[in-house]
């Protein structure tokens, strides 16, 4: 049974401002719910997208609200939801971030570096494609299966 009839590709345009996070989470939650995910997984998907966008807004865009990025959601025919976050910042592959060591981070009073770990744990697949001559924007692809 495919859920692809529910909606097709949808895009949210957001700016480099942390006030956008609430709207982004709402957009992702609505689409994930429409696609048929459980409340637990809706929360996880919205959390992963929040983490990715928080990093993007704070680090790549340096809180510059004149810069825009896109959150694209599209269902796959095999009951899989694909979320792509496209940005124009300096390319940064989040998959190179090491798994955080809590005790070490506490000793260093570090408050960041956890987001990527959360994304990797709650999504089924995470891929990163830096901009290249044929793709003008960096692309972070997050995949979650219905079951």
């Amino acid at each position, binding site marked *: 049974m495919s859920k692809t009839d529910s909606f097709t590709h949808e895009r949210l345009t957001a700016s480099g401002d942390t006030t956008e*996070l609430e709207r982004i989470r709402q957009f992702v939650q609505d689409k994930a719910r429409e696609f048929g995910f459980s409340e637990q997984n809706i929360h996880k998907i919205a959390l992963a997208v*929040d983490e990715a966008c928080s990093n993007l807004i704070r680090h790549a865009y340096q809180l510059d609200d004149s810069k825009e990025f896109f959150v694209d959601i599209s269902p796959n025919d095999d009951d899989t939801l694909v979320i792509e976050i496209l940005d124009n910042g300096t390319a940064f592959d989040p998959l190179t971030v090491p798994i955080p060591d809590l005790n070490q981070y506490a000793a260093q009073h570090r408050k960041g570096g956890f987001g990527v*770990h959360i994304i990797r744990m709650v999504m089924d697949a995470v891929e990163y494609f830096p901009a290249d001559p044929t793709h003008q924007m960096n692309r972070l692809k997050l995949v979650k299966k219905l079951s």
Partner: protein
Amino acid sequence: MSKFSIEQKTNGSAEVFYLKGFLDAHTAPELESAIANAIEAGQHRLVVNFNDLEYISSAGLGVFMVFIEEVRATGGDIKLTAMKQKVFTVFDLLGFPMLFDITEKEEEALAKFSA
């Protein structure tokens, strides 16, 4: 319009922070300055009550990481309490229960300070 608020009450020797709403990269700085102010005022026994918190991202968790070593160095602590399952899940994903004292009820957290 703020979707996050903090209420603060002194209870015995501890300062209790009641969080409400959504704690993310936008609202985390508000919590960070509230905790920094309490520590600066000499209060190192802190309890954070999550009963009315609907959502947390790692930016919220990061706030506790900033101060935990500092308050423990002086015999204090940051005790976390009354989390909804959804909020606890995020702490659990990152292994925070290993580093932080998380209790079900506020009284338990307060009792640990007076023990």
